[in-house]
């Protein structure tokens, strides 16, 4: 059920990203897909985040006729990493979604730049650095409503579900 809900949320977020959000110059650097993916990963763990990231990346690359796999790679790593953060240290900390979004936004843009450079495609570092503060602010602004929605749709797992990996010593 969670997979289906995540699929719908990320599909709608992708459509919003592709056709609506980027239609406004001011919001072009924001990424609602990234924010939605990180919120879900934080609440549902690393494997869920990695699979969701891969599928969402594939969807975005297909829709934009881009090089398949580029966005998938970045979102898989982002989803996995933040999922792991959610499973371990983040728990119910208020700052966790904001911190996750801020860090991954920076790394996502730099990762995109690095991949473009490695593929021999234009990698305008100046434009990325110029757009980074805007992307950071907008993504952080999106985090509050998107994470609140994700929390309603994916309520935090019961204690037993989260602490499966706790090893009791002694």
């Amino acid at each position, binding site marked *: 059920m969670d997979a289906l809900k995540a699929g719908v949320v990320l*599909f709608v977020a992708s*459509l*919003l*990203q*592709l*056709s*609506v959000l*980027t*239609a*406004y*110059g001011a919001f*072009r*650097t924001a*990424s609602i897909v990234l924010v939605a993916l990180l919120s879900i990963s934080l609440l549902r763990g*690393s*494997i869920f985040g*990695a*699979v969701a990231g*891969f599928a969402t*990346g594939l*969807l*975005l*690359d*297909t*829709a*934009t*006729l*881009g*090089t*398949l*796999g*580029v966005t*998938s*790679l970045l979102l*898989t790593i982002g989803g*996995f990493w933040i999922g*792991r953060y959610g499973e371990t240290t983040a728990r119910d900390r208020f700052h966790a979604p904001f911190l996750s979004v801020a860090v991954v936004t920076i790394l996502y*843009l730099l990762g*995109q730049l690095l*991949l*473009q450079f490695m*593929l021999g*495609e*234009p990698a*305008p570092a*100046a*434009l*990325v650095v*110029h*757009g980074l503060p805007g992307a950071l602010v907008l993504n952080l602004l999106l985090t509050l409503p998107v994470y609140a929605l994700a929390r309603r749709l994916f309520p935090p797992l*019961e*204690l*037993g579900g989260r*602490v*499966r*990996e*706790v*090893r*009791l010593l*002694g």
Partner: protein
Amino acid sequence: MPRNRTVRLAVLGSSVQRAAPSGYSSSRSSAVKRRVVVGLLVLASFVLITVSFRSSALDGLQSTGASILRPFEVAADRVTRPFRDTVGWFRGLVDAKNENKKLRVQVAELRRQVIVEQSAVQQNAELQKALDYKGPASIADYRRVNTAVLANPQSPVSQSVVVDAGSADGIVKGSIVVEPTGRTGGTGALVGVVDKVARHVARVMLLTDEQSAVTATDLANPSVVGAIRSGSGSGDVLILDRVPKQPYVGIGDTIITAGTLGQGPLRSMFPRGIPIGTVVSRSNSDASLFQNIQVRSLVDFSSVRSVIVLVPQPRP
């Protein structure tokens, strides 16, 4: 000394199974599973990148995927259009008064110019007919495909848009893309060229992309010839590169596509006369052989909603 574990059990609750050996192996198998899954996904991404980048084996699949997604993107666009229009209307109101004053002055000037130009166009057509003149390709040699923009640039790195028309509409790689214009037969400013085509959608590389370069000239001074490329600063500012210091380029001059120059074997993709932008700054430096000319595009790349794709058609 034996440890009292009752407190810990109370905190963790009954859902935590404490069977020592099985719990440990379960945590290890979970870690292995996690690594295997993420490893496979990363590997799959690398395989996709390699295959997609080095060959066109996945193009068919991508084209089908894009065609499936197209109705959803169109629906999303239609659903949100009223909201976008409302925002645009309010934004327009803010600038309307100032813009109105400027436009009135411009309209009076342009009316005078149109009268002179209409007479020149008429004379040109008559002379071409009389001389049976066969010139280079012009806008009239292209079929127009009016289409909507489905996806805008997704990040500062990607300077391309996806349009709602593809090979099924006759669009080919290299088709020229211009802005729509109110005039019938006229052409809007240059937006870019098609660089990837699927059956029902196509990707347009914008003029602001670093790989884009267009031979261009000054409308007021045809001896000025250079290449329009993306500027290094703000995305919307272009540069007219490779213009020697000698021919004079005035601020405010209109830059247009130069078309094919001379009789060489390499022909320009662009017909002559498509407007590109206006010169906003010009400077010389002792270290460079060329002028530094900045051009402001006539297209607002941040709000391209629809475009015209010019599809070449055989000349009679």
